[in-house]
């Protein structure tokens, strides 16, 4: 073989022959670059992860996380026996699954509508309006929501004016989930449409041309060309959303719940907050709940990632 072709091979062999400590010494500068980030990871990611060991301990304030005595799975016995815990898990899934199913099509519909609009400049303007709420915190949005949906707010006053019955959006258990769906659609639809718009703009324009020559109507073009073409994106987005079922919506629920909706708003994250920082603080118990939550979350995320990749998407992590 030609020596040029041998080159890289040889180099590799030479490199692997260098002792590891020399390799490390050679890259010492690179390691110093990583030190600040690693310190952060250890302090604020991996120490807390180690702190999850508290789930198997009996927490004593004066002994701290590391000094408290081990108790095995005892905390989990109490966790799984606690009816409030089971309710919180069930409530989390119930709220997030229904919310996902109902809200998911809206960004796709909006993307289709925007795409069909032939005025470029106007389209940009619409997009600006629709995406704006996404950049506001749920606290700001809840300020707006409380104003618009309250008993004497904009919407109910309008309903009254046209002679319709008013709706107690914020203070009734029955309206809590519909209110979450309504406000989530209001806040997130425009932003969600961006990914689908990008997918649509990637479709080969020739397909539309030949369809037009064949005399296809615009509706037919949407159903026969646009939708099939963005189906992979739609599938991947849906699966990624499934990955977040256990943790989604905390900010929204926490800031839109009140005394009247206390029972129906107790999703897992809210439950963890309440038992840790509001009622008597049994840190071992809430750590056990935290560990359960983190594990389920991880399994969901990994499963979603795997399925998304099988579907031909990029998954969560590239």
């Amino acid at each position, binding site marked *: 073989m030609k020596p040029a072709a041998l080159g890289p091979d040889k180099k590799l062999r030479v490199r692997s022959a260098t002792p590891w400590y020399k390799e490390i010494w050679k890259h010492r500068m690179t390691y*110093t670059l990583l030190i600040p980030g690693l310190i952060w990871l250890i302090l604020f990611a991996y120490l807390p992860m180690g702190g999850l060991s508290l789930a198997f301990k009996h927490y004593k304030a004066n002994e701290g996380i590391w000094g408290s005595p081990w108790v095995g799975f005892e905390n989990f016995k109490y966790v799984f026996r606690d009816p409030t815990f089971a309710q919180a898990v069930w409530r989390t899934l119930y709220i997030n699954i229904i919310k996902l199913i109902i809200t998911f099509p809206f960004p796709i519909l909006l993307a289709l509508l925007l795409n069909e609009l032939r005025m470029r400049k106007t389209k940009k303007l619409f997009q600006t309006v629709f995406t704006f709420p996404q*950049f506001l915190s749920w606290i700001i949005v809840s300020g707006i929501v409380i104003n618009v949906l309250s008993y004497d707010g904009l919407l109910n006053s309008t309903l009254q004016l046209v002679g319709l019955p008013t709706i107690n959006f914020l203070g009734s258990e029955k309206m809590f989930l519909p209110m979450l769906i309504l406000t989530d659609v209001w806040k997130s639809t425009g932003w969600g449409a961006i990914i689908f718009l990008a997918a649509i703009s990637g479709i080969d*324009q020739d397909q539309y041309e030949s369809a037009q020559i064949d005399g296809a109507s615009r509706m037919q073009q949407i159903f026969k060309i646009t939708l099939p073409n963005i189906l992979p994106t739609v599938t991947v987005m849906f699966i990624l959303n499934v990955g977040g079922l256990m943790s989604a919506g905390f900010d929204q629920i926490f800031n839109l719940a009140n005394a009247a909706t206390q029972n129906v708003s107790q999703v897992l994250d809210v439950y963890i907050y309440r038992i840790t920082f509001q009622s008597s603080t049994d840190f071992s118990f809430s750590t056990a709940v935290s560990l359960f939550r983190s594990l389920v979350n991880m399994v969901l995320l990994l499963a979603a990632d795997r399925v998304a990749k099988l579907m031909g998407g990029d998954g969560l992590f590239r």
Partner: protein
Amino acid sequence: MSTATAKRHKYRIGKMTFLDYTLLVVLIILSLMILIPFINVIAISFASQKEYADNPMMLFPKHPTLDAYKALFNDGRILTGFWNTLKILVVGLPLSLFLTSTMAYGLSRDKFPGKKIIFFLVLFTMIFNGGIVPLYLVMKSIHLTSTLWSVILVGSFSAFNMILMMNYFQGLPDSLMESARLDGAGEWRILFSIVLPLAAPIMATITLFYGVAFWNGWYDAMIFLRKADMLPLQNVLRTIIVESSTNVSNASSVDALNKTGFSTGMKMASVFVSMVPIMCFFPLLQKHFAKGVLTGAIKT
């Protein structure tokens, strides 16, 4: 290229049909549904309490007044909130850019022992975390609770942002760094005098990502900060809006705050002033976030 754009145009340009006008009307109605709540909020903030009571549906106050704003700023809590958030941003942004870019550059270098493990350590934080309880206990054990540092530090690194930046660094031409290395420049010098100036676009994007996260953040502050005079803007806003509307169940640690005395006008004024900075930066935010989402999630 020109044929492609020509085709595009042929498809785009055509007579406005009935369908097009219907579409336009539908989109206008939808955008009014987004806009009217904002207009209503702003109108109420500029109206007197009496005018609001008479007509809560107003879109424009007949007798605009600054009373609500005067009362809000006289109360002063919102100013404390702005001040604390400003402190968080001024310290947090440089720190987060430092932590993110050093790690991103280090991990974008050629193979070195341990690179894969360290990258995995970063990636793993995206799928698994200890949750709030151990984090709180760790923070307490290093005596950072009740200081703004807790909020700043927790928010100053994100694996997602680091990976975005790392991908960008990997795309930079190697020759520049190689020649600097031959001239005897160390990796730190290369990062600060060659890589970062070349990486202005990604730095802008990541700055905005961290900036919005710091601006909108409230959860960490609610957990770690116990004194009212330390709360960042969003938490002050929360005490004004959420907790004052008979929200006893979710009351956070800020019992010290007096929860009464805010008129609807003052509440809406506080919503509006907290929104203004986002509005000012919005064109930038929209552009950079769309870019980030599209590179981070899905490519078609």
